[in-house]
């Protein structure tokens, strides 16, 4: 059963202009998020994951960043063409974002309850008391007792703050949540709590989630599909089963090889050699060429196209072979 597509990104190109260089942050990204689906964007620092998320919300740094081309269709409307006023109605209301650092995402001089109520009132024409009532419900929903409504952020621990941030994001019943490394700043046991809570809320509310992370373990536990991002491109895309069991792009394989496995007996890890290419001077041809153990001469000359090696499993590598398809 094909579910309805909520968000579709087509040929997105984003560049940052600094004084002496142009940073090619996002290069021709295509991505579709279905209703109720959790999609993981996996990649290393500087791969362009956060830039993709910020483009969706149109909160890129105003003077340096520019969406050069492409479209972002949200419920059929192209976000890149909306006026700022129309965008305000979507931001926080239809699409909400959860940031990595819960310590700085909350205003330290307002109570947490007030901040949630304010977010609700911003997008709904309801009375103050109604907003407060809903804010209390939100707190309960993320597992914080209502009595803590009028406490300040500094009275909360890191995990609790992240719950508050999630409550704020969910307060307007958004259709899409962009979660940018929501648990990276948290300890493992707290991370497990927060992820479990997000999972159950997602099931209840049917929200779609774009989860940005560098942790493949988190992806395995929470996502339906995965997009592996490298140097501003999606190099491999597929369902979580495809990616974990039939990973085909050498970079994806390299990521798995870099991770210490709990059941492995080997004495050395298999890292990917070298570093990600400088985004101001991306190489011709395949961006992974320098680091790729499988590279042949042709890889350095022409950029590989997408190959569908199984239905819905796309790989950007000339060596990828179509399976049954």
């Amino acid at each position, binding site marked *: 059963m094909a579910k309805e597509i909520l968000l579709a990104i087509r040929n997105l190109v984003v560049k940052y202009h600094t004084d002496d260089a142009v940073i090619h942050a996002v290069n021709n990204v295509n991505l579709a998020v279905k209703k109720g689906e959790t999609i993981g964007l996996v990649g*290393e*620092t500087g791969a362009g994951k956060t830039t993709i998320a910020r483009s969706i919300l149109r909160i890129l740094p105003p003077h340096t960043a520019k969406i050069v081309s492409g479209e972002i269709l949200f419920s059929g409307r192209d976000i890149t063409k909306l006026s700022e006023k129309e965008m305000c109605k979507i931001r926080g209301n239809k699409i909400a974002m959860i940031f990595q650092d819960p310590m700085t995402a909350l205003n330290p001089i307002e109570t947490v309850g007030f901040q949630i109520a304010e977010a609700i009132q911003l997008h709904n024409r309801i009375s103050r008391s109604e907003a407060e009532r809903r804010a209390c419900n939100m707190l309960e929903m993320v597992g914080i007792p209502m009595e803590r409504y009028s406490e300040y952020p500094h009275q909360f*621990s*890191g*995990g*609790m703050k992240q719950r508050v941030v999630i409550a704020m994001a969910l307060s307007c019943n958004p259709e899409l949540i962009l979660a940018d490394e929501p648990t990276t700043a948290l*300890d*493992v*046991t*707290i*991370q*497990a*709590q927060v*992820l*479990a809570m997000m999972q159950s809320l997602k099931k209840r509310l049917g929200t779609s989630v774009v989860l940005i992370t*560098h*942790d*493949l*373990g*988190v992806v*395995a*536990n929470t996502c339906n599909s995965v997009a592996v991002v490298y140097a501003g491109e999606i190099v491999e895309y597929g369902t*979580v*089963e495809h990616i*974990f*069991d039939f990973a085909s792009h050498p970079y994806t394989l*390299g*990521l*798995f*090889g*870099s*991770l*210490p*496995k*709990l059941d*492995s007996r080997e*004495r*050395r*890890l*298999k*890292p*990917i*050699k070298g*570093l990600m290419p400088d985004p101001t001077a991306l190489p011709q041809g395949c961006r992974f060429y320098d680091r790729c153990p499988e590279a042949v001469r042709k890889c350095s000359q022409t950029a590989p196209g997408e190959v569908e090696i199984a239905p819905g499993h796309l790989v950007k590598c000339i060596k990828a072979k179509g399976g049954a398809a």
Partner: protein
Amino acid sequence: MTPLLEVRNLKKYFKTRAGLLHAVDGVYFSLDKGKTLGVVGESGCGKTTLGRTLLHLTEPTDGQIFFEGRDITNPAKKDLRRLREDMQIIFQDPYSSLNPRMSVSEAIMEPLILRGGMSKSEMLDRTRQLMDTVGIAARFENSYPHELDGGRRQRIGIARALALEPKFIVCDEPVSALDVSIQAQTINLMLDLQEERGLTYMFVTHDLSVVKYISDEIMVMYLGQVVEKAPADELFCNPRHPYSKALLSAIPVLSIHNKKERILLRGEITSPVNPKPGCRFMARCDYARKECNRPQKLEECSPGHFVLCCRYQEITDK
């Protein structure tokens, strides 16, 4: 054989406004030459303070530290200087552990200058040699830290630690700020160095899969105490303390198939200010009983496997 490092009843308390914070509270361990001791725990469990105390970057409140059989708990200033040539540390954050105003070669040369006894050209040679050892190309000699990526910066940190040819290195979360592919490169480098030079590591981290990989023995810390200590494989196969069990089950597994049952802990780690004498994990523990209010004793449940829980037997039997 005398162990390279032995610690007995080590304590480090900090005075805070709220009371006495028991950052490290009665830690015992001994570590043989060439081995790696992993120390895991969540933020605030005292693992970092433990490493700092061993190197006298903060002074211990109580207890004893022996290095190669010598008591180094309260070293004289002269002995401390010598000690720091034998014991070194690699820091967590490659972005803040290097002076931004010092170039790569200046940073690596600094420990040599401070030790003295080498001519300028000897020091330069040694610096280049060290850069080669940790895999930083010579062309970065005059670069500044902000021009380099995290992985290279961390290599500078490692080169600095190696400069004085220490026997023992405290690695304080050396790879947690790095990307996975760089993390793997760095871990491999550290393992190579250990093999070549017979180094002994104390590897402090919150990343359980990394610690399993690199350690011979692992200590799990909770609120300043060691709650469990065992050989690495033994701990992962057979954790006995309720906290270790929860911690291990919380690791996100790299597979979509064997979805194991997770133990979700209630609440969060508190701070060990004026702790009660009983078990510190009690408030979050599903197995807590009245007897947990008594002071707990580290018991050897199987050879080399120690656990700080009075109910471990009942829990395992269930």
